[in-house]
């Protein structure tokens, strides 16, 4: 007898409005996307724990590292258990992470925040990130790019919501907007966010459904997908996928695209002020906001367009045009502020698009059978880029500053390194070919495994 959390308990009837599902997927991504807004807690936490920026910064780094690990090791379980159980488990970890971190804030123990938000919450991040993605692709086999764009746009949107919301909550509970007030409101803000996320993720888990095995979208002919050379109708298991060159080529593609995006994101505010000395700190913060919007829009728009342009072509654009735009910034970025802003916005939209198009690319190459598990393993590229990107950019800028350079010249070398990385990613994408049939799961076994546990 399956429980209400099992995949078998949430099979939709044959006649079902699939447009009810994206809200459920967005619900969890909007909640866990809060992690990208963690910086709003930096200064209040530095004051509360009487510690430095690096010590507080580690909370975010641990969470992102755990995201990659949990997605890689938990992907197969997520695929086997179905979206509801994995959303409930992800939500439980995510909310428990906030509660343990709250205990750390209440008792002044920073290690409890590392353990809670970083480790426990990070596990929730990894499982939550992949849990609705493959389900959405199964609901939108005719438009998988649109489906993954919808879900992963939520991750970008989560930060847009959590950043102003957390600031408002800290000011409300702390009685003002001064740093001391924000610090005083930390504990109640964490508890409030935990409660909000528990409710929203629970609603998402209630609403989520998997399609009936006999269901196909009205008017969609699966044979049209079979006619496209880069879209397979066969399936590859997660264990086999990591033994194919295609998996590792896409790993390199994602790593290069994310590292390059971080090159801008990591230093956006100081960068625009170094390029144009008349830009005020408030205007620089506005520039960061503009980049966040470009990042979120790119997640949806580029992924949706990949359904008609083809995933490989989209990555050619992300990496090729991105490379050209990096060169534009390096060679003449300081000459015109409009060119600088437009170029960085497009680069950030490609950064977002790279995240949201990759699950659909994986589906094209490996089929939908265990795409969630394969996606989870590929996300280790994100973790690696999260470490490599800031390390490259910050150490190069520091070395340039030590050698006496100032202004735009501080960034030139790191921009050229990013150009090189994007060129490597471009070549890797160029080499992607359909997966050899020897890796395919025998027909029938994939269906059997998916629906009869």
């Amino acid at each position: 007898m399956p429980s209400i959390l099992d995949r078998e308990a949430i099979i939709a009837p044959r006649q079902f409005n699939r447009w009810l599902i994206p809200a459920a997927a967005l619900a969890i991504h909007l909640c866990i996307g809060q992690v990208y807004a963690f910086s709003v807690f930096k200064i209040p936490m530095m004051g509360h724990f009487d510690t430095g920026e690096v010590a507080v910064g580690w909370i975010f780094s641990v969470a992102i590292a755990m995201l990659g690990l949990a997605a890689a090791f938990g992907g197969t379980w997520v695929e086997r258990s179905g979206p509801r159980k994995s959303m409930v488990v992800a939500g439980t970890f995510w909310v428990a992470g906030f509660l343990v971190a709250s205990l750390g804030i209440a008792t002044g123990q920073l290690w409890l925040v590392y353990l809670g938000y970083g480790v426990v919450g990070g596990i929730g991040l990894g499982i939550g990130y992949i849990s609705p993605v493959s389900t959405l692709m199964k609901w939108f086999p005719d438009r998988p790019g649109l489906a993954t764009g919808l879900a992963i746009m939520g991750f970008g949107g989560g930060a847009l919501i959590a950043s102003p919301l957390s600031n408002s909550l800290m000011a409300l509970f702390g009685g003002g907007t001064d740093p001391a007030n924000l610090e005083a409101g930390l504990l109640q803000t964490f508890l409030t966010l935990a409660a909000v996320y528990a409710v929203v993720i629970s609603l998402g888990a209630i609403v989520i459904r998997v399609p009936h095995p006999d269901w196909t979208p009205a008017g969609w002919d699966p044979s049209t997908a079979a006619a496209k050379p880069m879209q397979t109708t066969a399936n590859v298991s997660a264990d086999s996928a990591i033994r194919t060159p295609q998996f590792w080529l896409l790993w390199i593609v994602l790593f290069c695209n994310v590292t390059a995006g971080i090159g801008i994101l990591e230093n956006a505010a100081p960068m625009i002020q170094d390029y144009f000395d008349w830009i005020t700190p408030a205007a620089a913060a506005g520039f960061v906001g503009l980049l966040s919007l470009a990042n979120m829009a790119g997640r949806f728009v580029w992924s949706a367009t990949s359904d008609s342009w083809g995933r490989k072509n989209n990555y050619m654009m992300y990496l090729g045009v991105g490379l050209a735009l990096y060169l534009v910034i390096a060679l003449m970025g300081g000459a015109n502020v409009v060119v600088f802003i437009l170029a960085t916005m497009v680069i950030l939209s490609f950064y977002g698009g790279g995240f949201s198009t990759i699950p659909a690319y994986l589906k094209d190459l490996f089929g939908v059978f265990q795409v969630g598990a394969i996606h989870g393993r590929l996300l280790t590229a994100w973790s690696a880029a999260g470490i490599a990107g800031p390390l490259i950019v910050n150490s190069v800028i520091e070395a340039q500053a030590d050698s006496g350079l100032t202004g735009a010249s501080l960034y030139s070398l790191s921009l050229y390194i990013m150009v090189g990385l994007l060129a490597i990613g471009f070549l890797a994408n160029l080499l992607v070919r359909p997966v050899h049939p020897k890796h395919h799961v025998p027909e029938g076994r994939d269906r059997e495994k998916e629906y009869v546990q």
Partner: protein
Amino acid sequence: MSTPNAGSSTAGGAAPVTREPAGTGGAYRTTALVLALIVIAALAYGLVQTALKASALFTG
């Protein structure tokens, strides 16, 4: 619930699933719509707040 996007049965292929489909009645639809409203409102809040912040680039 039948809608323009509702799916259809395929003719071929025996379904290995024997369990009844999950309930999608009135309570389900209400919950789904409430969730959709929460998601849309939250996204609108985030977008407006960020757009206001971004406007400082041109005014600040």
